[in-house]
């Protein structure tokens, strides 16, 4: 089991059973230390409740007393096939920033829907958010089937309702599975009570997921993180966002377009490193000093993006204070940090109903999404998110607080 862990986020409306599902999964796969289980029974007893599976992730006193999840948490578990990191996200709208924080770390989303209550406000909003942030695999679980007597017709009604909503999104569910996390039906084994369902049970579906990996070769992009002075030498440090960088290569520093030659590629403990690839943290020395600083992006000569002062992206607004046209805010993208203002809000969308609220809007309010164009004070280097993720995602900050999250769709 030395493969990379798959990171899954559990999303959905409040009280639809996300934390209980995680508890059930850990219990059934024998992933809990013995003492966790006895602690759980004791704490549940103290609060006068049945053994509460949700307490495995709801660890804060405030969470247990109010029976809610406040903040996102991460739990590890393994099967024979692979390891998983489960990210539990809160379902309350007031804790949405915590859910979004979790969503930016996930590769797969599990959308939990209460079969009795049906599709609710946060069911839709969470689906919208993970779609917007680029999570492109979703499994839908219709939970609490025990409360609707494992009724097939109810499952079909709710499925149809949810599928109608997914028409508006680019992500489509890989599986739609009826379960009962509470009674343990169809979670880690095939359920007799749900034998009418053609879908695999949840764990089986999860294990069968594979992430599609693109095999195209990407151009060099190296956002500069810092400059270290070492023994009188200037070392440029950062992580390769895409492509390859080689000793002896001529590279271009953006946005000032200086052309320099790589003298050495450095990592500690390897004095003869010739090249580095995507994901590697390295140091570089180049033939001309004093030209490079944090926020610059090093690219290859053969394939250079155009630095721009106009960025267009899909933006989710997560602050009480609206985004207003022409009011200065800070945009952060990779290691770049620049003052900017929104010059056009093409549309304003309710992130739960996907209703178009307004075209050519003057502001974007809490929990609304929109297609926004920013004008930056100095030029920045960006790429479409679908091409190079690290240069295609950004946050909008004000007073060092995150107010919005965005994905680059194009530049002008």
């Amino acid at each position, binding site marked *: *089991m*030395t*493969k990379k*862990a*798959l990171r899954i986020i559990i999303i959905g409306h409040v009280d639809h059973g996300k934390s209980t599902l995680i508890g059930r999964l850990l219990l059934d796969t*024998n992933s*809990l*230390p013995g*003492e966790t289980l006895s*602690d759980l029974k004791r704490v549940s007893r*103290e609060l006068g409740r049945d053994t509460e599976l949700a307490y495995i*992730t709801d*660890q*804060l*006193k*405030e969470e247990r007393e109010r029976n809610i999840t406040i*903040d*996102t948490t*991460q739990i*590890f578990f393994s099967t024979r096939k692979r390891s998983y990191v489960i990210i539990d996200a809160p379902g309350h709208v007031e804790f949405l920033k*915590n859910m979004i924080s979790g969503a*930016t*770390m*996930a*590769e797969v989303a599990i959308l939990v829907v209460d079969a009795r209550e049906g599709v609710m406000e946060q069911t839709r909003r969470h689906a919208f958010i993970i779609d917007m*942030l*680029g*999570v492109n695999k979703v499994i839908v679980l219709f939970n609490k089937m025990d409360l609707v007597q494992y009724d097939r017709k109810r499952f079909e009604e709710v499925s149809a309702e949810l599928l109608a909503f997914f028409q508006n999104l680019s992500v489509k569910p890989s599986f739609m599975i009826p379960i009962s996390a509470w009674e343990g039906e169809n979670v880690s084994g095939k359920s007799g009570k749900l034998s009418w369902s053609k879908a695999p049970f949840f764990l089986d579906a999860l294990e069968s997921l594979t*992430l599609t*990996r*693109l*095999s*195209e*070769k*990407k151009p060099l992009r190296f956002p500069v*993180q*810092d400059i*270290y002075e*070492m023994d009188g030498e200037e070392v440029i*440090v950062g*992580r390769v966002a*895409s*492509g*390859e960088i080689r000793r002896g290569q001529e590279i271009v520093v953006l946005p000032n377009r200086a052309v320099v030659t790589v003298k050495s590629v450095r990592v*500690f403990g390897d004095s003869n490193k010739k090249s580095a*690839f*995507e*994901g590697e*943290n390295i140091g570089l020395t180049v033939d001309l000093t004093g030209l490079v600083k944090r926020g610059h992006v090093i690219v290859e000569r053969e394939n250079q993006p155009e630095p721009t002062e106009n960025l267009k992206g899909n933006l989710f607004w*997560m602050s009480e204070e609206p985004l207003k046209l022409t009011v200065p805010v800070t945009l*952060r*993208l990779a290691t770049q940090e620049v003052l900017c203002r929104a010059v056009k809000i093409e549309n304003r969308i309710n992130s739960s109903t996907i209703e178009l609220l307004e075209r050519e809007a003057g502001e974007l309010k809490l929990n609304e999404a929109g297609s926004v164009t920013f004008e930056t004070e100095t030029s920045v280097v960006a790429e479409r998110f679908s091409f190079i*993720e690290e240069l295609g*995602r*950004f*946050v909008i900050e004000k007073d*060092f*607080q*995150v107010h919005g*999250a965005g994905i680059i769709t194009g530049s002008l």
Partner: protein
Amino acid sequence: MRESAKSQDAGNGKELNYLDELESKTIYILREAYSRLRKVALLWSIGKDSTSLLWITRKAFFGKIPFPVIHIDTSYKLKEIYQFRDRYSREWDLDLIISRNEAALKSGMSPDKEKFQCCNLLKTQALKDTLDQYGFNGLFLAIRRDEHGIRAKERYFSPRDRKFQWNYTDQPAELWDLYRGQPDREKHFRIHPMLHWTELDIWRYVQRERIPIVTLYFSKNGKRYRSIGCETCCSPVDSQADTIDKVVRELETTKTAERSGRAQDKEDTYTMQKLRSLGYM
């Protein structure tokens, strides 16, 4: 997004393996915090996690760590811990700060009195004093999400107010690797570069990198420590694992929690939450 899939997208046949990927994220966070905050220090408990963090920090800064390393010394640590500290702080040329709450020690504070107060005074208060004295605005800590349910809720960059308090019910958003970390005289940041590692990952990494580790982790007379700290509050667990390879094999199958030998977690259900909200590690 999808940071783990990314390295496999490279399309050039080069692929980071899973330990490289964990290490890569840690290095990125270390350099990011140093770049944004500059006045940082690393907390070294001499345990396997912070020793691994120290190892990776040496890599991130090409062999010479450009900031101090703090050891919070309660005076009750196991003696092997002191020996290890003194040997490797010389060997790795560390700028070591030893942080002790001398006043509390003089007044006789010890775990025999009350564990909660003892941890709070000899660890948290000692750290507060050191932070005030040196004016650090960022502290690297090697806590991991899988250690404890409360730690699982942490951010990589976690702000603390002047009184050291952790506002765990209203943590800031943390998106992708666009971490916060703005120097601010009112507060400091706890930075957790090892948050995404599990206990088993750490041991596999120690094994691969041949990181020197305190021998307390290896079995003697059928017992070994899985988690180390003060002599008074840590007890060894039953184990035959007397080498790194055997520890890795043991952890691949165990069902016992890592901190099961740690007394301070156990006083009551929310001790860890209380300790941490007051600034405990």
